[in-house]
């Protein structure tokens, strides 16, 4: 792997990753690479290990063996916080938000944590005017400005989904991992989410798990197909769409 050219160097890489829950082997020897700024989709039937893979990469789960590299640096044993500080941010399949905080406060909190300004201090939050402005800008960008002051718990599911993504984007990640971002959204909202993501700066890599094939084929540069804990195929969306093996993986032979 050391013959990689610098600018196409992998932002994320796993080398012979092995993971098992007790006897059940999830990944035997998973090698995976994601280039800087690449928009990469992971598809595959349920139970193919997609969410487990994301949890391993983001540190919520520890692999049995093998290593994970971020920007060329080994992070297998880093804590989830260290990974976030290193620029790797994820969203959850099921919304995981702050019930009692309203969207504005939630995003401001994310920004404060990003700039590590949330430690013991006597200055009021209102003093952080640029962060508050940035938060408001992000909410406006994702069309949540009108809901900024309402209770997060009272937001419709679709808007909560958007807020989940805003919280991740707020951290200006180098690598954004999205676990079924469009889940529970209408197709129109789904496209809206993905077009927002497309606008993100070029050097932010995005790795997302998605079932909606036309979203995948429209927004992904590269598609990986997972099945039963193995990377069956990794290619451009068109090739994956045409490949008989992918159809076989989904429909079974």
């Amino acid at each position, binding site marked *: 792997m050391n013959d990689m050219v610098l600018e196409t160097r992998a932002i994320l890489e796993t080398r012979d990753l092995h993971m098992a829950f007790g006897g059940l082997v999830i990944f035997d020897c998973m090698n995976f690479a994601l280039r800087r700024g690449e928009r990469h989709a992971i598809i595959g039937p349920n139970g193919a290990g997609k969410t487990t893979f994301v949890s391993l990469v*983001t540190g919520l789960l520890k692999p049995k063996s093998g290593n994970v590299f971020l920007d060329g640096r080994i992070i297998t044993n880093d804590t*989830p*916080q260290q990974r*976030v*500080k290193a620029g790797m*941010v*994820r969203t*959850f399949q099921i919304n*995981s*938000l*702050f*019930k*009692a*905080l*309203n969207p*504005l*406060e*939630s995003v*401001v*909190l*994310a920004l*404060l*944590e*990003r700039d590590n*300004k*949330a*430690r*013991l*201090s*006597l*200055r*009021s*939050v*209102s003093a*952080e*005017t640029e962060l*508050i*402005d940035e*938060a*408001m*800008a*992000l909410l*406006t*960008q994702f069309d949540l*400005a009108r809901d*900024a*002051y309402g*209770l997060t*718990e009272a937001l419709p599911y679709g808007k909560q989904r958007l807020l989940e993504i805003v*919280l991740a984007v707020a*951290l200006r990640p180098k690598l954004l991992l999205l676990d079924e971002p469009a889940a529970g959204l209408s197709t129109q909202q789904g496209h809206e989410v993905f077009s927002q993501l497309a*606008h993100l700066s070029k050097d932010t890599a995005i790795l997302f798990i998605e079932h909606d094939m036309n979203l995948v084929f429209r927004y992904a540069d590269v598609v990986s197909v997972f099945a039963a804990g193995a990377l069956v195929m990794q290619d451009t969306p068109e090739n994956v769409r045409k490949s008989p093996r992918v159809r076989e993986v989904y429909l079974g032979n």
Partner: protein
Amino acid sequence: MSALERLTSDHAKAATGYFALLARWNIWEVLFWLALAGMYFVPNVDLVLMSQIFIWGLFAMSLDILLGYRGIPSLGHAAFFGVGAYVAGYCGKFGWTEPISALVLAMAIAAIVGWLTGKLVQRVTGVGLLMVTLGLNLILYDLVHRSTDLTGGDDGLQGVTIAPVFGLFRFDIFGRTAFWYALIMAFLLFAVARAVVKSPFGLALLGARENPRRMIMLGAPVEGDVSRAFALGAALAGAAGALLTQTTQFVSPNTLSFQRSADVLVILIIGGTGRLYGGFVGALVFLILRDWLAAISPVYWYFWIGLLLVIVVSFFRKGLLPSVEALINRWKPSKAEEPSQRVPPA
């Protein structure tokens, strides 16, 4: 950066305005503290009882930082109160009689003990957390209670002399200095706690109370914040302990007894968690009621205190303050409500 350009300026101003509104001292807060100060001039008021209400209020507020803002309950918060009380007691006994500096020293030592406790209980939750805090409190109580040559044990620390405040105001038997000293110190420490709770750290505590897993994913040092929250809570509790020692010139093991840990929890729940004022309102109600009940039915007042607690837990679980506020909000809905008050931790 087209998104930023599209930003309309009024959106930004409204957002900063929102946080400024939350931080600003509103009229009712000022009235509350003036009312408390006004108690001094009420004819025939028991000044010593008032000073102890301020001390209990400060102590309950220190628990509110942990329980109301970070969602960590504790059955052993009196441990920090006792540490502060004994540090102030030793200062008074061994020549460091100036009260304010002794108070600061007491807060510092209590903060260290709090920080260590935070480290210890980081991964424990639920009944286990209640048991660990209770256990630590009982161990400290047992140690203080038995080492008679060091702490005077059950008879308390003797020979504690406290110099007049600023060399001018002696702690007289009528409790005048005690009243003002306790009130002003309680107010200053309240202001500090209020600033911290309105600061980014306060927001981080609320985030961790609501959803620790999400905070981890924002890169927040959640466990480190637990220790910092414990240090802050312990420092304020230690200050309350020191105030009690200095206003009564005496300290005994019951400053860190299980009864005190239970009482402060009851006071906070009666007042209401998550708004810093709950502690003071709870202290006002609990101490006046107990003093009055003990006078009219000396043997059976336990029954009425128990009944009060059952009623508050059953019908006013959010506490008196929030329930009264909810009543008032029905006619005149308020615009900005503190995040900590919206969804009670229970």
